[in-house]
């Protein structure tokens, strides 16, 4: 049953599995898009994919390079304006799950995609917010998909672009954020989930072959580890085959 696979593949497959039981997914670009399309190609064929370009129910045969590729509109149930996608579909909280990437994540799963360094004189100017702040605020839950490193998992964000669990218990309620916030952070090393009490991210799963020390070393704060730490199930052959077919399709088109 075991097949060789890359850590990125494990991450994407774990992210796809996180969609199980969800009906509608607001998809960001990059790894989240690949994971969402993998879920649709494997265990959740009926999942409704919604892209911030305004396509609802897109069924692309391969994940798009950009969120505005023509195939997203051509295969959609309906295409709506940017105003409508944010106001009528995202904001009211009618979408089950949002998939987000990040440049920096802190222990409360808050996200920075704006700048590294000082805002007015940045060391690295990142792309900025895009749809993320409102995806993070309004989806019923969010999942963050990001590679695990100290550069990403930082003690303190240089800029809060999108709110996860704010400064801890009760923060989302105080801020008027109506979705549940991040329910997991999926990396190439394992899965972090907020502690139900403190809302601080806690390592709950390691991918096969990864140990706790490696995850701790890749995290910029003292990483808490769940007392019930588990190991992610290996990718199945079906998952890997589907993922590689999808990834090849995207590359072929570029």
């Amino acid at each position, binding site marked *: 049953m075991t097949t060789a696979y890359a850590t990125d593949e494990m991450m994407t497959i774990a992210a796809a599995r996180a969609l199980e039981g969800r009906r509608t997914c607001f998809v960001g*670009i*990059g790894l989240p898009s690949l994971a969402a399309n993998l879920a649709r190609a494997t265990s959740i064929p009926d999942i409704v994919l919604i892209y*911030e*370009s*305004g*396509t609802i129910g897109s069924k692309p045969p391969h994940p*798009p*390079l*950009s*969120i*505005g*590729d*023509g195939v*997203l*509109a*051509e295969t959609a149930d*309906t*295409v*709506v*304006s*940017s*105003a409508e996608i*944010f*106001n009528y579909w*995202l*904001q009211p909280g009618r979408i089950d799950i949002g998939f987000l990437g990040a440049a920096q994540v802190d222990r409360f799963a808050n996200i920075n995609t*704006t700048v590294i360094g000082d*805002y007015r004189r*940045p*060391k*690295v*100017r*990142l*792309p*900025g*917010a*895009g*749809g*993320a*702040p*409102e995806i993070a*605020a*309004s989806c019923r839950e969010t999942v963050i998909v990001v590679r695990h490193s100290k550069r990403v998992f930082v003690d303190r964000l240089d*800029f*809060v*672009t*999108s*709110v996860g669990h*704010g400064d801890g218990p009760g*923060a989302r309620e105080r*801020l*008027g*954020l*109506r979705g549940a916030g991040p329910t997991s952070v999926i990396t190439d090393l394992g899965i972090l989930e907020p502690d139900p009490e403190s809302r601080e991210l806690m390592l709950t799963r390691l991918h096969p072959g990864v140990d706790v020390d490696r995850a701790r070393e890749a995290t910029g704060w003292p990483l808490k580890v769940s007392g019930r730490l588990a190991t992610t199930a290996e990718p199945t052959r079906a998952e890997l085959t589907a993922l590689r077919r999808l990834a090849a399709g995207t590359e072929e*088109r*570029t």
Partner: protein
Amino acid sequence: MAVTATLAEAVEAGIGDGDSLAMEGFTHLIPHAAAHEVIRQGRRDLTLIRMTPDVIYDQLIGAGCASKLVFSWGGNPGVGSLHRLRDAVEHDWPTPLAIEEHSHAGMVNRYVAGASGLPFAVLRGYSGTDLAEVTDSIAPLTCPFTGERLTAVSALNPDVTVIHAQRADRAGNVQLWGIIGAQKEAALAAKRTIVTVEEVVDELPPHPGSILLPHWVVDWVCEVPGGAAPSYAAGYTERENDFYQAWDAISRDRVAFAEWIDANVKGQP
């Protein structure tokens, strides 16, 4: 009232130094040809407005046309950074670039307010983020019925909006379809509107998913086939994904960028 013009005429008449200029198109129908004409005519000190600045604004910024950028996501979609945008923000090259930064939801609602003749729009947004601290056009607002705290964003009413569309008729009615983004709102919010189209036709046959801008809210219509490239016009052209990927290397280097602009923009008609 729509006038048919060449792109050079429309940019000459419609866009002046110091103007606020919105070029919309969410990954689709991006008016690249018009941006190139702006570079050729040497406009300066523009306030560039766009949800996704993208390669089109990387070029305008790198060419020194802009002094300010109003935006919500400044990357090369699916590829990475906008290096000319970064060089301007990080190193003031070729000139300093002020930025006014929002989320997509905030930007699009600013266009909605502008198109609606309102000074602001309301949304559930920005709460808990650092964006409100760095952006003046974001303010808290209390619901007069429930007391809930919400967020207001000020309206955008660009001096000029430029969009690319599939087609127009001879009266200047403009039809577009596919991913429609914020084009209608950006056009209706603007004082002046320039539309480049793939073709001008006698009749506009109804098309599923299409929207129409009536001739009486359009100022200039310019027939510019392929005017969205390397972006695309659904039903007419394909997205040049390889160009977006090639842009990463071209734009990383100031000299390579300048050479590309000389060869592909300034050297063109």
